[in-house]
């Protein structure tokens, strides 16, 4: 009778092994809460739980271990407290931490008989997959979207591992990944196309299709700051065509905005902090670069090369004032936009430029600014050719808009 009766009855001799096991659960979100409950009730002897998140209102509709009074508290610690009561015989250990922290090393992983992944991102999944392979501990990997989900068992030498199959790059990205914490070239490309390009030349698109707003409410403070940043950029847009336009834009997006992000120390605890770019220094380096660099589209451009493609050589800016034709994407695009605006009849909606990967001016601008951002965040840069391949085709817009 009592707590062990049913698990003993159903599981037979397996129950002793479960009771003596020491397991790791990574993630205390939607799957994690459910899994923790099941592990605790089944009687797994010792359960370690790792999660770096805090509880948000939008979690409460499914993460049943959390309630309103728990908002802003660490998921791992609250989950331990609540689920621990389901079965006092189970030993629970909770860590409010990132599983990628060096304290969770191979020796530590080797201490578990089984690891469960209940994560929400590719990067952490890959990391745990590698650690489990190195430590030779079986891993049960899981994931869910909408009504669908999957579970995969990964055991070294017996099954394929998480990275054996290339994973499709997700088509949408959380706003904060694009605007604050990029970690892959694609993040910077999406930033350049859907944020920077549209804010400077297009109609500002809060709702670009690549943006996944589902995590906005969890990062509301940062989202608000990003909104202010976008507005400041829009103000700079007013000075389009002025000789120091390139400098203003550059110093805003690769200087001021980066310094603000850098000041948020929590963000960079387990990531490389971004390094701002210095306009004057780079423009000196760029003096020797010829604008024909844009023709070199199959190798990744260097920092000064990207700079030239993005803005211009400093001395070119001087000539720009004289109306000299310069092969520089920012200037070319500025000129096109001003030209379109001049032609528009009074009272018409202000014309905008739209991105098209087959339009070299727009492609070069996006390629160069994506690469400059990659340099800021220590991400690999890409050639114009590769970037073009990563970008979606010209979007079809319904005539009704």
């Amino acid at each position: 009778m009592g707590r062990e009766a049913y698990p003993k009855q159903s599981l037979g001799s397996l129950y002793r092994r479960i009771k003596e096991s020491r397991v790791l659960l990574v993630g205390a979100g939607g799957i994690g809460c459910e899994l923790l409950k099941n592990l605790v009730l089944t009687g797994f002897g010792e359960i370690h739980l790792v999660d770096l998140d805090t509880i948000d209102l939008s979690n409460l509709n499914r993460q049943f271990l959390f309630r309103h009074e728990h908002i802003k508290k660490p998921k791992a610690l609250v989950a331990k407290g609540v689920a621990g009561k389901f079965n006092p015989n189970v030993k629970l250990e909770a860590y409010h931490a990132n599983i990628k922290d060096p304290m969770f090393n191979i020796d530590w992983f080797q201490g578990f008989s089984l690891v469960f992944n209940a994560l929400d991102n590719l990067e952490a999944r890959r990391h745990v997959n590698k650690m489990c392979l190195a430590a030779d501990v079986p891993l049960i990997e899981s994931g869910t979207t909408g009504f669908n989900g999957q579970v995969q068992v990964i055991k070294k030498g017996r099954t394929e591992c998480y990275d054996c199959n290339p994973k499709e790059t997700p088509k949408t990205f959380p706003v904060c990944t694009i605007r604050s914490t990029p970690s892959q070239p694609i993040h910077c490309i999406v930033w350049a196309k859907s944020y920077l390009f549209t804010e400077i030349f297009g109609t500002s698109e809060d709702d670009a299709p690549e943006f996944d707003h589902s995590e906005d409410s969890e990062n509301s403070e940062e989202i608000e700051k990003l909104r202010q940043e976008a507005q400041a950029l829009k103000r700079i847009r007013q000075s389009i065509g002025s000789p120091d336009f390139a400098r203003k834009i550059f110093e805003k997006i690769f200087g001021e905005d980066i310094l603000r992000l850098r000041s948020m120390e929590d963000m960079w605890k387990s990531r490389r902090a971004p390094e701002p770019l210095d306009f004057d220094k780079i423009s000196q380096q760029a003096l020797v670069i010829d604008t024909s660099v844009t023709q070199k589209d199959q190798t990744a451009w260097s920092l000064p090369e990207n700079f030239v493609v993005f803005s211009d050589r400093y001395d070119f800016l001087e000539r720009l004032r004289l109306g000299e034709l310069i092969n520089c994407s920012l200037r070319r695009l500025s000129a096109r936009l001003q030209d379109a605006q001049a032609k528009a009849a009074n009272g018409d909606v202000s014309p905008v430029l739209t991105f098209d990967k087959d339009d070299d001016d727009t492609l070069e601008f996006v390629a160069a600014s994506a690469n400059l951002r990659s340099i800021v965040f220590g991400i690999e840069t890409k050639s114009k050719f590769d970037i073009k391949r990563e970008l979606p085709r010209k979007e079809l817009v319904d005539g009704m808009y």
Partner: protein
Amino acid sequence: MPITVNSADEAAAAADDAQTISADEIALYDRQIRLWGVKAQEKLRSAKILLVTAKALANEIAKNLVLAGIGSLTIADHEQVSGDDLCSQFFVSEEDIGKNRAVATAPRIRELNPRVAVHVESIDVRTRGAEYFAPFDIVIITEADLDTITSINTHTRLSNRPLYATASHGFYGYIFADLISHDYVIQRDKSNVPTALKAETSTRSVVAATTRKENGKVVEIVTKRETYSPIALVNTAPLPAEHLKNRRRLRQVTPLLTCIRALWEFQRLSNNALPSHSHADVELFTTLATAKHKELQLPPETLTSEFLRSFLQNIGAELAPATAFLGGVLAQDVINVLGGREQPIQNFLLLDAAESKAPVYSLHPPTNSEDGLVVPVFV
């Protein structure tokens, strides 16, 4: 507080407000509204659900439905919390032993979502007539024997209410659905082949199809109708023709279907008791299972002694991972049925957690395809 209104318009606006979802609710239910839309959420919010017997499986269903934001949940249970209930139930603890099970679980279910009204009935619903079930939008019976399901199914049919019945035995379990006749909508990219308004299976037909332009794509909105059979007919129904015609498919049918039917028969013969490990009980259960297996026209070799042993060992036990699966699938189906979206369970799901399998069989009395009349088959 009484609301004073000055015009018909204001009255209508006030009524609208009461039915539409507040900004707070949108923030709380954000993730699920992204999945099933505001309209389905509004339907959920007004739904009244009856859940019978508050054990592990019912804990899961209650948790999932209350978190999703149904209107009200009525939990009916006439039994007391026992020591065994602590194994797999997360809404009761030591101090609840001896209390009525519905009374003991309700406060913790309420904590999950203060917006949902949770009512308790410490009665045996078997003593109630059709009028008791009529006020609910959906009735869910858990861990009941066949007689109870049959009698409540008669009531739900009389008052035209959808019924779910579910039970778990350790690694094994089932979900039965009798939605009588249920219309639902699916959205899909419009195909080049036109959608015909006709029967798709012996139970499902397409009743309407319209199109809509969405982000430059043509989306088709198809309304389908599933028709169901009551448990009294389902319990004796053969497997679908596409199984019976195919020996390979018959070999793949889980012997769990046989064992659930045998268990129902065993309980009917033994005054509702579950089989013990006594020699007589095991022998009777094996005889019944062999007969049910034959009745289903399943190959004798698929009812192995290992499976029978494993099933008998699991009878009566509650195992959290298995109840979580059944409660998850059932609640998801209830949510979709209330929202009038997605294909519902038609009509018998079997969970074999030892094999990690959960096939759904459509079990109905055979129809005469020429005139569509139901012709009972006597073996």
